């Protein structure tokens, strides 16, 4: 049958199977994480880090090192540069961040666009789901497991601080440390996910799922599970669209995620009346 054939097509090739597995793993963990990213209002820092890690990615690509290593180094350097620039009290932190990150992005582009550099800037910016290898899948799987464990352990502090940062300290929690732990998780997720979705598109999977499910969730756990499901589903839809329509996979996934977010915002919420 045609339909079955069409649905099975991506699964027939190793490339398609790996791309699907990658979006499910990344979507699952990043979709869950997106609830906290939006709850702690970290969308802008997340975007900054995602763009600011580009030089690390480019240097790793040029040196033939694993991209994960470059991404991790890039995130660390971008975070340090933002923290340093934000210490100048004469300018607002978001202004300092914008300047630092544009600079880092420019540096990354400069390095990647040298005449003697291999032409890989496109996949670093927009992702390379088709080129996902076993090492990438292993990294995504490890991230999914470790970040899930971390989210489980941090669940109560994350909830208490997000709900009421003012009195969380009186409960014996350190709100600054809770926030820092979340930033660490965000950085790890970015470093792993950026290879599949690219420096410019990775933000979609760390913000859009939460927007899609927020108004229909009665608890943080529900929001995380629903976010994970939406992100994995949008990832699969994006990979299929890429196969069937012959369009770029990373961009298709990002668009599917944003469509889900738009639909989630437009449809009425179910929370009212669903109490008890």
């Amino acid at each position, binding site marked *: 049958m045609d339909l079955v054939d069409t649905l099975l097509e991506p699964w027939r090739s190793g490339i398609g199977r790996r791309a699907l597995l990658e979006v499910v793993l990344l979507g699952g963990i990043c979709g869950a994480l997106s609830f906290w990213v939006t709850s702690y209002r970290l969308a802008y820092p997340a975007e900054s880090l995602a763009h600011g890690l580009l030089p690390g990615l480019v240097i790793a690509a040029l040196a033939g090192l694993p991209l994960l290593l470059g991404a991790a180094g890039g995130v660390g350097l971008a975070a340090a540069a933002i923290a340093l620039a934000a210490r100048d009290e004469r300018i607002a932190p978001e202004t300092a961040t914008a300047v630092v990150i544009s600079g880092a992005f420019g540096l990354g582009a400069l390095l990647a666009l040298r005449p003697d550099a291999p032409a890989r800037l496109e996949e670093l910016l927009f992702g390379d789901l088709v080129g996902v290898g076993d090492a990438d899948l292993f990294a995504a799987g490890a991230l999914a497991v470790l970040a899930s464990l971390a989210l489980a352990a941090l669940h*109560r502090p994350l909830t208490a601080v*997000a*709900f*009421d940062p003012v*009195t969380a*300290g*009186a*409960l014996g929690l350190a709100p600054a440390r809770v926030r820092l732990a979340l930033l660490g998780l965000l950085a790890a997720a970015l470093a792993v996910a950026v290879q599949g979705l690219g420096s410019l598109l990775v933000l979609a999977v760390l913000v859009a799922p939460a927007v899609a499910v927020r108004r229909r969730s009665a608890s943080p756990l529900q929001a995380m599970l629903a976010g994970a499901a939406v992100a994995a589903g949008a990832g699969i839809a994006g990979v299929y669209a890429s196969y069937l329509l012959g369009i770029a996979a990373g961009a298709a996934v990002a668009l599917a995620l944003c469509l889900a977010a738009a639909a989630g915002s437009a449809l009425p919420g179910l929370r009212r009346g669903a*109490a008890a």
Partner: protein
Amino acid sequence: MSAAVSAARASLGYGGEPVLTGLDFAAGTGTTVCVLGPNGGGKTTLFRALVGELRPLTGTVAVAGRPAYVAQTDRTRLDFPVTALDVALMGSLAGGRWWRPARGCDRQAAGRALERVGLADAAGVAFGELSGGQRQRVLIARALVQKAGVLLLDEPLGGVDPDSAQRISTLFAELRSEGRTLLVSTHDVESAHAFDLVLCLNRRQIAFAQPGEALTRSVIEETYGSELVVLSGGSDEPVRAIAVQHHEH
């Protein structure tokens, strides 16, 4: 009688100029203290120092054990998806072991605390859908679950419905009889008469004494300045007065 809450020659601030000076008081275990003062007078600053968020610029402040803090409800996130029971349950985080899920006995304690504030029926209701007074009572339930000997409550009666205000006042009396120490900040000079002690603040400590002694016309005038309408009382007798508040919201 040991001091549950005390300050010795303390001044508080956020770096730079102190915003509250001359703090010198000691409240024994099982006493209720009304903290009076105008907006910006230093009530919340005092509480932040007592919970350990703010180190005194000079002198010391001390609390026996870790106090529970009930901030004004408008500091909480109303759109965050938690139920009344979830919020009460957060009090059990004070027992440490934050990485573990809540235990059955924690849930029971949270349920009992909600019952005590008269909200057993609302346990499953989203926090953001409760009335202001109900939210205040849920936050007090969270403080009860914390099992703290000292409770700091920032304007707990501000803008709550009469039913909630009645329940909260009754609860204060019960907590006092259990030997807990309460510091309650309020705008309401009238309600201060129901407390054991009154601490008047206006960027410095104006008075610390029993209500009959502290609430004189001169003290009240010094505490509130021009925000006050005095209804009766001579310069050295207890007064009845209304503090006129200029909210900055």
